[in-house]
């Protein structure tokens, strides 16, 4: 009797362990299944993480004195920009999303600086010289602010220039149905140069305006 009881209990307790194990697995599977069903949401989309501040360039880096072509179709050497701090972005006018937003940010920095905003160069250098002729650049940059400067050159020169900022750009294959609709992948930081033309700071896309304005103010106060 006792033996039979023990026998009848043991399978039950083992069965209970198995039951627990399977129940645990099922809970895990259920949770995992639910997670999977929401995974597209979790994996969805880029989540740009704006850095709170700019990155200081540890050794002020002098940028070579390239001669470029301005939006008024004049040859301009980068040395011409000296005497004022310069906020600089690389982009292209066909870029619908990030580049114009960087330009709005430059304008907001200028506004935030008030009168001192006039003591800064705001420069857009194209990474798409094929489409961004001086005339296209003129209409583009002056739409943001009449004082903004657009610059272009040949592709090789622009490549060397962006490389001095540790950046690159890469024209993507045009779509077969519209060869003019190609996009250009490019480094999209905003750079701050001092009045001597040395690269001092870089800001990732989405950096708050007041942070950039504060750095420019400090630079203007120090110079």
């Amino acid at each position, binding site marked *: 009797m006792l033996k039979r009881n023990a026998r009848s209990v043991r399978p039950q307790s083992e*069965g209970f362990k198995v039951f627990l194990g399977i129940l645990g697995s*099922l809970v895990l599977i259920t949770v995992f299944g639910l997670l999977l069903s929401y995974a597209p949401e979790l994996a969805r989309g*880029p989540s740009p993480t704006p850095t709170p501040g700019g990155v200081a360039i540890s050794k002020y880096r002098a940028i070579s004195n390239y001669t470029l072509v301005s939006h008024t179709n004049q040859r301009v050497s980068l040395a011409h920009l000296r005497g004022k701090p310069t906020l600089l972005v690389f982009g292209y006018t066909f*870029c619908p999303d990030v580049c114009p937003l960087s330009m709005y940010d430059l304008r907001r920095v200028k506004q935030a600086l008030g009168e001192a905003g006039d003591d800064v160069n705001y420069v857009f250098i194209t990474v798409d010289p*094929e489409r961004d002729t001086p005339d296209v650049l003129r*209409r583009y940059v002056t739409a943001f602010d009449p004082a903004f400067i657009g610059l272009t050159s040949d592709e090789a020169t622009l490549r060397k220039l962006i490389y001095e900022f540790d950046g690159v750009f890469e024209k993507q294959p045009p779509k077969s149905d519209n060869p003019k609709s190609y996009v250009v992948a490019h480094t999209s930081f905003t750079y701050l140069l001092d009045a001597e033309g040395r690269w001092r700071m870089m800001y990732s896309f989405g950096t708050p305006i007041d942070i950039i304005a504060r750095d420019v103010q400090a630079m203007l106060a120090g110079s």
Partner: protein
Amino acid sequence: MNVRSMFVALVAVSLAACAAPVQNAGSGQSEIVVKDAWARPAIGMHGDGGHSGHGGHGGQVSAAYMVIENKGDAPDRLLSAAGDVAGMIEVHQTTQKNGMMMMEEMKDGLEVPANGSVELKPAGYHIMLMDLKRDLKPGDAFKLTLKFQSGKTIDVDVTVREP
């Protein structure tokens, strides 16, 4: 009720829990509502009539942003957008890697989850407007017709404003 029947019942319940979202998705319908549709201005990019010598320049672009909500219990997918504001309209995604910005057409469309939403916003998803037919000034408005996988089409009023 012995252990075995409890076990079977629990398996059944668990499997039902696993399958539930899928079953809902299959039997329900999406219910799309679009909110806060806007596009950034594109000013002064017209009028040179090809004087630049390139037979048309590439600057006539803008991007439309919005929140697409799906109050239904089936997911849906934004496949395309159309409108007379631009010659070419595509659903795009901007991706960012080590400061390098890249833009790609979402050829399979953009999913709008059941009982959820997706936001088209700068540096994320956008509806790219290429070959704009006119300048877009702040305060202007235009229509886009969004097409979804479910067969639904939604007309959206897009307001032009600065980001």
